[in-house]
């Protein structure tokens, strides 16, 4: 756990002991990453902390005074970086792991859809409060919004349909297409069960469709219909007589049992009896094969339509379906009892075709043999045994039965999710999503769960005291936003949550594997945080303050988020931090710029003092060129320059003084004195600068015979000098490294000037 020193154990050199949860049936093995730290045991302490991106820094230390090899040089400790992003060994999932770039594409793409749905929700809620009708949004309309959202997200996750223009080998059984991901499978499953009300009546057929898209994801180890067919496909090239191969008939019955009618018909046409040279000898046999193919392709299906290329006859209503079903079943039975079977010479064909007919007749034994995974058996029940299965309870009982019949198929994320859905247990669904599909799915799927389910709505939105007053929905959004910004701070912040709130039997700890999907990206997290009413803005502030400030463009991006969410106080702090950073690194202009933006008078005043000492030491015209840019930045009319405003005038004064002393011309001397008087009068000139200013002018005052100032001006300066003399007694007075006689020499110069002024006064 980050930031926590862990004590190593003796067991097999493992640094951190990992105990799987014994309560779980099949805990996924934790991803193990060997670290070559090169520190000889015993290891005393281990520190883990986040570096940038997905880098984890692991420091291994030996005991401070270990009595090692006596003189032999051994490492006392070492720090190694571990990149969690480079795949690792976590290949236990059945699916192809979505790579990081692809996952980020999904994350970016889902932001606008999520934001649109939230804004619609807010609009509806506002409208409801305005018109004082019950605050529940109009469901009829609402689920359609959610469906639109769901379709948008679904498209992001990939399109399982094959490309339209594709020339395919007629001997291709399984169409080449984009590899399905279990993320998309899970999303579609939730959409089918929770959102799409249009097609509620055709739920079984939708499950059959879903299975045909995602059957390959059910298991990589155990056999599935998909794996049977793809194995047969590989074998097919070398087969001379397909109907002699048992895998051909196994593949056919498997495909038929899960309703992949187009594949069955296509495969039946591979049958040897279709070959022109054999047509004459095997006429009856060919007739039987074709009869089965026709029956397969005309199977009635209770659904509104079929995608192109799929077979069967659609029946929109129940009565239509029952009529068609009875007629079709009659034809199947008739063919099964036909006398032509005796004339069929090829035994394997006879047996195989009969088996197909038995599947179509809904013979449970044949179906159980043909299918491999319990979910396939489940789907075959809908197709051939109970086409009218409706209601979650019935489905759940059926699923239990199928699991008993196919106990070996095991469970993975998807089947766990289906069972959760069928048992109508939102908690389990949520837990399965959390465990298997990561925070992205949980956060976005929450909208699907609550689309038309009041119980889920209450369960997810109820503010819970044991969560610190936030709802489950908000919690998951907070978690997701933090994963987006994967940061040491946020990770620590989130750990207590996970340990605290998830009941152990339902939710497992956030698997570390999630972090491989994480990267520093603060720009999309605010969308999610802003939808968290209780703690969202607080966390957003923390995240924003943690953003890097080294780069001006990144700072501006962060400030833009502050502007959008009206976090003026946060943006002020960020600007001050950026100002200090740039000032420290010698970019004084940029530093001052940020302080000005932050209206930070205190820092600007302090900078002014530093700059004064700089300027005070070097007054040549050349060095002023460098200051020009900065002084231009401060501007003469900008009020917020704070103490720096005076620098501008001081620059003019110094330059003028230089000219006056160089050229000894009366006009320049007079102008210098004007600048001096202005500076001394101006309240923004700090008191500590008075004496140096006056001291600088001594030479000028003494150089002229005619008085440069009139009586009133001289008196003003003398008064200021008097104030200074009083202040000199205070302990915090600083004399700016001026000679100790500075005050007296200034006083003398002013007095002689006064004398001349009085004399010169008419």
């Amino acid at each position, binding site marked *: 756990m980050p930031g926590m020193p862990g004590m190593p154990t003796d067991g097999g050199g493992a640094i951190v002991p990992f105990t799987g949860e014994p309560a779980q049936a099949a805990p996924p093995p934790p991803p193990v990453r060997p670290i070559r730290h090169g520190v000889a045991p015993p290891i005393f302490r281990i520190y883990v902390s986040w570096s940038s991106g997905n880098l984890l820094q692991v420091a291994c230390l030996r005991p401070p005074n270990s009595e090692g090899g006596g003189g032999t040089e051994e490492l006392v400790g070492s720090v190694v970086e571990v990149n969690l992003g480079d795949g690792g060994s976590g290949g236990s999932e059945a699916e192809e792991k979505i790579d990081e*770039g692809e996952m980020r594409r999904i994350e970016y793409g889902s932001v606008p859809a999520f934001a649109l749905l939230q804004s619609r929700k807010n609009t509806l809620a506002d409208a409801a409060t305005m018109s004082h009708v019950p605050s529940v949004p109009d469901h009829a309309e609402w689920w359609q919004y959610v469906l639109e959202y769901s379709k948008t997200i679904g498209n992001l996750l990939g399109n399982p349909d094959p490309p339209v223009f594709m020339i395919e080998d007629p001997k291709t059984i399984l169409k080449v297409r984009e590899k399905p991901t279990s993320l998309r499978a899970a999303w579609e499953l939730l959409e089918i069960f929770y959102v799409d009300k249009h097609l509620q009546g055709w739920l079984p057929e939708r499950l059959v469709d879903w299975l045909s898209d995602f059957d390959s994801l059910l298991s990589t180890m155990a056999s599935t219909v998909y794996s049977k067919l793809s194995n047969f496909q590989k074998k097919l090239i070398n087969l001379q007589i397909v109907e002699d191969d048992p895998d051909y008939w196994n593949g056919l019955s498997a495909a038929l049992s899960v309703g992949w009618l187009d594949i069955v018909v296509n495969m039946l046409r591979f049958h040897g009896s279709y070959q022109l040279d054999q047509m004459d000898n095997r006429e009856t046999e060919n007739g039987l094969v074709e009869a089965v193919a026709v029956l397969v392709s005309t199977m009635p299906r209770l659904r509104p339509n079929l995608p192109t290329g799929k077979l069967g006859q659609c029946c929109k209503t129940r009565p239509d379906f029952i009529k068609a079903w009875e007629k079709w079943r009659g034809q199947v039975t008739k063919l099964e009892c036909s006398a032509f079977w005796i004339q069929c010479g090829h035994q394997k064909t006879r047996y195989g075709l009969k088996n197909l007919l038995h599947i179509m007749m809904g013979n449970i034994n044949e179906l159980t043999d043909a299918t491999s995974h319990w979910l396939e058996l489940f789907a075959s029940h809908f197709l051939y045994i109970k086409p009218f299965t409706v209601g979650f309870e019935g489905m759940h009982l059926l699923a239990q039965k199928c699991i008993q019949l196919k106990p070996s198929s095991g469970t993975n994320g998807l089947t766990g999710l289906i069972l959760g859905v069928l048992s109508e247990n939102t908690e389990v669904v949520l837990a399965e999503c959390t465990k298997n599909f990561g925070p992205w799915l949980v956060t976005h799927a929450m909208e699907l769960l609550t689309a038309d389910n009041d119980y889920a709505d209450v369960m997810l939105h109820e503010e819970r005291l044991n969560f610190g007053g936030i709802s489950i929905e908000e919690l998951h959004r907070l978690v997701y936003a933090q994963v987006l910004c994967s940061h040491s701070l946020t990770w620590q912040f989130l750990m207590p949550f996970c340990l605290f709130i998830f009941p152990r039997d339902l939710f497992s700890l956030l698997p570390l594997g999630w972090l491989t999907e994480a990267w520093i990206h603060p720009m999309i997290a605010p969308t999610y945080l802003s939808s968290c009413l209780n703690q969202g803005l607080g966390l957003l502030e923390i995240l924003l303050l943690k953003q890097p400030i080294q780069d001006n463009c990144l700072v501006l991006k962060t400030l833009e988020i502050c502007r959008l969410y009206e976090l003026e106080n946060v943006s002020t702090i960020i600007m001050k931090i950026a100002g200090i950073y740039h000032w420290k690194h010698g970019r004084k*202009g940029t530093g001052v710029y940020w302080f000005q933006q932050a209206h930070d008078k205190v820092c600007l005043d302090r900078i002014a003092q530093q700059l004064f000492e700089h300027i005070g030491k070097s007054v040549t015209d050349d060095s002023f060129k460098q200051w020009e840019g*900065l002084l231009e930045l401060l501007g003469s009319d900008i009020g917020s320059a704070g103490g720096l405003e005076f620098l501008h005038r001081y620059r003019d004064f110094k330059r003028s003084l230089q000219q006056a002393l160089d050229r000894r011309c009366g006009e320049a001397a007079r102008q210098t004195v004007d600048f001096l008087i202005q500076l001394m009068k101006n309240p923004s000139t700090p008191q500590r600068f008075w004496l140096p200013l006056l001291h600088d002018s001594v030479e000028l005052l003494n150089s002229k015979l005619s008085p440069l100032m009139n009586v009133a001006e001289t008196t003003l300066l003398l008064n200021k000098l008097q104030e200074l003399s009083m202040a000199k007694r205070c302990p915090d007075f600083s004399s700016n490294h001026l000679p100790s006689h500075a005050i007296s020499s200034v006083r003398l110069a002013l007095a002689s000037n006064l004398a001349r002024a009085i004399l010169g006064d008419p």
Partner: protein
Amino acid sequence: MADSPSFRRHPLASSVDLVRWLPSSSTSPSGRLLAAAVHDPTSGPAASSIHLLPLSDPGSPLASLPLPSRATALRCSPAALAAATSSGSLHFLPSSFDSDAAVSVPGGAGFHVGPVRGLDCGGEEWVTAGEDGRVHLVGGAADGRVVARRLWDGKGMSGYEAARWASPVEFATGGAGCGVQWWDRRKGDAVVAQCNGIWGRGIVTGMVHSIDIHPSRKHICVVGGSSGTIFAWDLRWPQQPIPLSGVGLNGTAEPACESEVWEVLFDTYTQSSDIISSASARILPVMMCSEDGILAVVEQDERPFELLAEACAINSFDIDPQNPSDVVCALEWESIGVLTRGRDAMAEE
């Protein structure tokens, strides 16, 4: 948001900081080319590079030049593609795109310290202006060696964010709070004019992000910066910048956006709505991209014409000099967009 047929997004699976059209040659077998400065957001700043992408398939780079840190400026000339980085280095890739023939000026005390955002090619020489306040002229790439000559060292008193040549002897720079400066090499390589911009009214000052100078009107700079600000600066009236867009201006211009304007370019494709006066003082149409995802064309005293309104920031864009109807832009969400403007789209205006 559905893509219109004239706009295509291409995901790149890495963050795109800058994007440019490369001068296309008829001999190039792969058609029109783009250069993009990208970095891998998961691996920290080390994994940055310049990719050469074919327009036909921007997802698969043809060549790649690794950079020591994130690119902060990217420009191309007929002879080379140049990139400056946030660690102060400058890299040249010759137009043969052979990454072995690439030359560079390392960042550090001898060159720039910190990000170099100002970079432009002025025929013979390149100008670089960094946040460290230094301005360099870099040239002599012919014999394979590059020589950087320091023109000015602001010692951090001012920092530069943009640089643009007006003529072989004049260029403009801009930066944080310091507005725009006009440099003349004939007058001792010094700043000869200065403009503080049009920031005001609550926003104390602003940062210049981008400068463009039209080749046929070398006395006018168009400047994009903080708070949706775009203004034109005419050297003949240096104290009166002409606002084109900005927040808090009193009615003179409608803001095209409210956030940072990252880049501005004169748009040679959009015809000025007032053709007769185009020879007069009127500023030519300017294209801009912004942090809040706007790509638009702004004109003096006209409503901005929005080309794109994306959900994420548009960090950079470029108009193809050879086909000015085509625009490429770098989107914050790890993709580039290619916009093709047709006659129909313009007729609607």
